[in-house]
């Protein structure tokens, strides 16, 4: 399968230097961490609408996200590396999403899955309750996956792209951070939340 070939091309062998006949491998710690991070990108158990169904199919045995090391969907934002924004972002949900993203530990990555999460999709026009894309919330996106919904292969490919990005020789660069749009939800998303303040103090 193409995904397997691509995954094999991204395997950790390029980071290692084998001594002939020996049992010792040599590598840099930096590369080791890159390899470890790129090979176990744990997603957050988080789905917003129909793309989440496709994400579940990706996790099941036919498509098998486990072979990329991403099959461990964590139920807590504290334990995961990537947030797969799977579905339409409603104004009320946007508030929750910002909170979840803030709770994830660094390094953290975001995959915007499906047209709605990329830029509103079919809900771009004539909709009062939908946020037009993840980036409008002020959440930086690493990989955009288009499709309505995207095929599971496409999502697997996006995880490999993210892996490529993490393991790149120049080092991982955070995508540019856009400020959150103050107009979303009548300024609702940007109102001062007492629970947010507490978090800042704790960190």
């Amino acid at each position, binding site marked *: 399968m193409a995904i397997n070939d691509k995954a094999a091309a991204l395997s950790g062998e390029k980071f290692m230097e084998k001594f002939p006949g020996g049992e010792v491998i040599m590598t840099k710690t930096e590369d080791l961490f890159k390899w470890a991070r790129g090979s176990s990108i744990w997603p957050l158990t988080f789905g917003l609408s129909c793309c989440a169904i496709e994400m579940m199919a990706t996790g099941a045995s036919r498509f098998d996200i486990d072979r990329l090391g991403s099959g461990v969907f964590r139920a807590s934002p504290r334990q995961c590396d990537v947030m797969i924004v799977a579905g339409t972002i409603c104004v*009320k949900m946007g508030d929750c999403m910002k909170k979840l993203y803030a709770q994830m530990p660094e390094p953290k990555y975001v995959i915007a899955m499906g047209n709605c999460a990329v830029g509103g999709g079919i809900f771009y*026009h*004539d909709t009062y309750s939908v946020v037009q894309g993840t980036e409008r919330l002020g959440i930086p996106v690493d990989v955009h996956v288009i499709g309505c919904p995207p095929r599971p292969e496409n999502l697997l490919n996006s995880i490999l792209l993210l892996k490529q990005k993490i393991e790149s020789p120049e080092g991982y660069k955070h995508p540019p951070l856009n400020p959150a749009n103050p107009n979303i939800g009548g300024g609702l998303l940007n109102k001062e939340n007492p629970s947010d303040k507490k978090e800042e103090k704790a960190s």
Partner: protein
Amino acid sequence: MDLAPLTQIVRGKFPDSIVEEQSTALVIKKEFLLKIAEFLKGEELLFENMHCISGVDRKDKIEVVYHLYSFKNRFMLTLKVFLPRENPEVETLTKFWRSADWLEREVFDLFGVKFLNHPDPRRILNPDEWTYYPLRKDFTHPEFFPKAETQGLKG
């Protein structure tokens, strides 16, 4: 079953209560709403089921549309009330049909119709902080992008 016999019954019981007799709906004055609702729910007609409550913005007025169903007579009645666009207020029907509770909250959420004596007059789906009603024809918001083709559409 036709609507005409039912209209006759209502007209006989409450003269001057009917504003307009549409082909599929009965439009009544809002002052008579509680009395007529009680009568419809009662022994004689047995409209036991409040099926749906919707709002319609006609630009000059706001309509509240009630769909009632009688299991015994197998008949669905469409009841309408016309309200002024400025400050639309109507009595709640929660005391007759409990299902009217959330349906009325939805109409309030989207059209801003105030239901008097409602047990829980909050928004149902949209954020509580919103001060506008998104299904009104004159709704605008910086994050609301109307589609070019739908702008010419008449309500």
